């Protein structure tokens, strides 16, 4: 393997990102010294990104089971039964490091990869969501990254023909050197068609579908995704970023779904991180078989590629289908119709060995137990220790603002500049799209298109400020917020997927944060009876030695049992009463306002999970029964931002009283929802809250053309709307010239 060994004067395994101990373990597994190709294959499969070697012992503590769970963590996507013979497949992934280096392609290929995970399960992808986190808006490089990432999601997602129906966009100092680009995909399938990525049947053929294999993305999982950034290395890592082609992916989706419709595949697996090595070893080991792979048969983009490059390339838009020999002609015909290249590159064998051959009858280039690549990776219980000084100066020491109105306006930012660039309506399912507390999609049968009268709801949430103050309590609050977001659109939660974005796991503080966050999530998910059905761990989010704040992102899937009208959303109607449902308890610790002043330490507001569930059930029933005409979860920015967003969206002013001070205005705490109630229904709403044992405060009236908070602020609605609307366009480019 001269091509590999020339990479570096140090031992080959180290250049590939393997430790000395890992190299010894590989030799033990093989009972001999591994050759260069074998080391390359182990290095990608045993990378942090593929093997979860630092996180797996912690993830075991999450609840993963419920009667409606069809597939839990560990497969390409989690799957739940959503009724009417329909199953929903959902997955979330990060594409943080590629997006930091090459924002457009990094984000685009993130979208492409997550789509393949979903149709690998036999599901048609119907929706994407994109939780995005960038450095501050006044940093030119962060703006460049933000623009590129949004363009990449737009360019790929729109063209591949899957709507992007929600997400988040956050700008904060902690992401200056390391943005977070998470992508969630939802698909639906007839329950009986569930496909798992496994090979079986000795003599069956492995057919490589889609793009040819090039030198792009080599070592993406090991070199790029499983190490942090130093001061000046992003130029060096650019060749590890892949390049996406949504048109190829669109044809691949349609071709694969037709293969699945016609029952022509035994198993199917996408080629993502670790490329062919991952797809061949995982399908074989899941099926308890082996595979012979003819590396010379793999169509290549350029001449002179070596076997280790072909086996570890992360070229996009490729799938591996396991088919019976009798079905091959039909498979090739369908692929031809969709203009998808299809090449037999492997044969299923008995025994369990993955052999890489130069021609099926040619030289054996590598021979390893398939299962050892993804089951025998070392597990690490890395040292953990709580940081000495958790989050800087205490929030409670901040002086009261001299102009709370101006500070409120500074906290507002309408994400419309982002989501206007995404097709969020394709497939005619989007009842509530991006920009609201949660997304609502019609649930229609994936094959017949028949409406069920029900809906699916989804939200993505994260809050690094809370999690920096207290990763365990903060993560529980994030789960709680997700549950409430779904309640605000009339949905009940079914399952969680998570994307755990953390710093360098070799830093004991980071592993402590990770472990705490997992426990906070586990506790909250158990309390709310929502299993975790999948996730993605993204470590090494650091730049120049500084770790990002812990950022677990929660994707929550739920159902709307009777979808006969649109939920009211975060809006106001003139003359309606404003009522705060839920407790008064808030804290400035970890709040958006306090963070803007650089002091977030303290104690987060407590989460009473029983009360939280009562609030969620109450809000859901108020929305479903049509008793409220405006509803908004109180989250980042506290009550002030919640009401201001309702004002901005409706153009109707509000007069609030009984808000004592800036801490009550900007403080954040769980289980709180603002509702706008027709005066004639007020008694009924208050009675419902009392029956549910949910505290209420009548905080004011929606009216006029000003937002007035007694003794604190008085802002014209026009100013407020302009501040809300113009924040992102002013910083990132107008996007459209008529605004």
């Amino acid at each position, binding site marked *: 393997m001269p091509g590999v060994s020339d990479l570096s004067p140090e031992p080959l395994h180290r250049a590939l990102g393997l430790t000395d101990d890992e190299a010894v373990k590989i030799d033990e597994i093989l009972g001999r010294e591994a050759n260069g190709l074998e080391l390359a294959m182990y290095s990608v499969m045993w990378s942090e990104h593929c093997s979860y070697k630092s996180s797996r012992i912690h993830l075991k503590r999450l609840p993963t089971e419920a009667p409606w769970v069809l597939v839990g963590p560990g497969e390409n996507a989690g799957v739940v039964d959503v009724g009417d013979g329909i199953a929903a497949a959902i997955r979330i992934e990060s594409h943080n490091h590629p997006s930091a280096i090459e924002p457009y392609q990094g984000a685009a290929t993130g979208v492409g990869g997550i789509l393949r995970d979903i149709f690998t399960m036999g599901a048609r992808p119907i929706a994407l969501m994109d939780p995005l986190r960038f450095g501050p808006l006044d940093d030119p490089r962060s703006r460049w990254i933000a623009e590129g990432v949004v363009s990449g999601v*737009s*360019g790929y997602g*729109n*063209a591949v*023909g899957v709507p992007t129906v929600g997400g988040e966009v956050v700008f904060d100092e902690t992401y200056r050197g390391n943005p977070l680009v998470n992508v969630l995909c939802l698909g639906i399938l007839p329950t009986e068609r569930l496909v798992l990525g496994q090979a079986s049947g000795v003599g069956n053929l492995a057919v490589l579908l889609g793009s040819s294999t090039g030198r792009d993305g080599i070592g993406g999982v090991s070199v790029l995704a499983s190490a942090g950034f130093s001061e000046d290395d992003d130029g060096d890592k650019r060749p590890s970023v892949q390049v996406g*082609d*949504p*048109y*190829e992916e*669109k*044809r691949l989706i*349609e071709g694969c779904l037709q293969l699945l419709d016609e029952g022509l595949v035994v198993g199917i697996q996408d080629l993502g991180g670790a490329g062919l090595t991952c797809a061949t070893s995982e399908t074989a080991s899941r099926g308890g078989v082996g595979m012979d792979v003819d590396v010379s048969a793999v169509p290549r983009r350029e001449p002179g590629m070596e076997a280790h490059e072909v086996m570890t390339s992360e070229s996009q838009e490729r799938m591996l289908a396991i088919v019976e020999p009798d079905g091959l002609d039909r498979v090739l015909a369908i692929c031809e119709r*969709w*203009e998808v290249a299809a090449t037999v590159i492997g044969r299923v064998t008995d025994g369990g060995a993955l052999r890489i051959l130069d021609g099926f009858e040619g030289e054996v280039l590598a021979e390893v137990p398939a299962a050892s690549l993804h089951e025998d990776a070392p597990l690490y219980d890395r040292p953990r220790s709580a940081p000495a000084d958790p989050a800087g100066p205490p929030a409670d020491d901040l002086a009261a603002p001299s102009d709370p109105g101006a500070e409120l306006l500074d906290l507002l930012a309408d994400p419309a500049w982002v*989501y*206007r*660039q*995404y*097709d*969020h*309506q*394709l*497939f*005619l399912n*989007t*009842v509530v799209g991006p920009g609201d507390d949660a997304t609502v999609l*019609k649930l229609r049968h994936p094959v017949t*298109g028949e409406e069920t009268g029900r809906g699916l709801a989804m939200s993505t949430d994260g809050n690094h400020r809370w999690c920096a103050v207290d990763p365990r309590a903060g993560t529980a609050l994030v789960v709680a917020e997700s549950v409430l977001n779904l309640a605000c659109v009339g949905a009940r939660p079914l399952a969680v997927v998570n994307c755990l974005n953390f710093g360098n796991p070799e830093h004991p503080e980071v592993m402590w944060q990770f472990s705490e966050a997992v426990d906070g999530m586990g506790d909250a998910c158990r309390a709310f009876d929502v299993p975790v059905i999948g996730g993605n761990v993204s470590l090494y989010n650091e730049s120049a030695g500084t770790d990002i704040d812990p950022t677990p992102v929660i994707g929550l899937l739920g159902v709307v049992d009777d*979808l006969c*009208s*649109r939920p009211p959303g975060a809006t106001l109607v003139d003359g309606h009463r404003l009522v705060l449902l839920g407790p008064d308890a808030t804290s400035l610790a970890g709040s958006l306002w306090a963070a803007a002043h650089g002091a977030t330490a303290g104690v987060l507001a407590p989460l009473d999970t029983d009360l939280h569930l009562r609030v969620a059930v109450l809000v859901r029933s108020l929305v479903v029964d049509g008793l409220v005409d405006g509803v908004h979860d109180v989250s980042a920015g506290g009550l002030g931002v919640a009401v201001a967003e309702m004002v901005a969206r409706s153009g109707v002013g509000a007069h609030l009283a009984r808000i004592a001070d800036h801490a009550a205005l900007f403080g954040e705490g769980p289980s709180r929802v603002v509702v706008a109630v027709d005066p004639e229904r007020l008694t009924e709403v208050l009675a419902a809250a009392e029956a549910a044992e949910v505290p209420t405060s009548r905080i004011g009236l929606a009216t006029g053309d000003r937002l007035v908070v007694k003794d604190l602020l008085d802002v014209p609605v026009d100013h407020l709307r302009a501040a809300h609307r113009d924040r992102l366009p002013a910083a990132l*480019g*107008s*996007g*459209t*010239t*008529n605004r």
Partner: protein
Amino acid sequence: MATTVGVVVFPGTNCEMDAVTAVEGLGGSGRLLWHGDDDLSGVDAVVVPGGFAHGDYLRPGAIARFSPMMGAVARFAADGGPVVGICNGFQVLTEAGLLPGALQKNRGLKFLCQPATLRVETTASALTGRASVGDELSVPINHFEGNYTCDDETLARLRDEDRIVLRYVDNPNGSMDDIAAVCNEGRNVVGLMPHPERACDELLGSADGAILMASLLAAA
């Protein structure tokens, strides 16, 4: 017999089932027409739907116009059959020479997916026979290249011949003369950038597009 609307599918098309859903919601019947075939199978009207035919490679519609199916659509149109191109379909129809003008990148150089208010400018077209002049309809747009342009002479003809079918009330993309839809001389071929099939259901936010889709069915 329900009116049958053929919906053309190129590789990369993605709005074909949405068009079928809208047609069937109005009592019509939808039939997919594969780009490589050259037979319209007796449909009563044709929709060239939205998406990214052939990946928009070269430029939107530039490759799709050479397909056998577009030859069949051109013959159908020449015989007076109603043809509506929506979004990418409008781009295909201009590339195919069935409609004048071209669609260039939006003025703001960003993709835009948002509601638009359209004013009906003429009812003498395959898309607007059931509407009234001056009607204002809320129909979403979803495009990067929706900025309509043509030469001055063509614009003068479109105006003189009452061939500007829909205009934007608040121009989102820089289209010349606020044009959202135009028709051919025979008035049976119409192209529009907004998506009427996405506005046929109040639950999705607007049902204002239904009158346009119903007009197409009535024209068949």
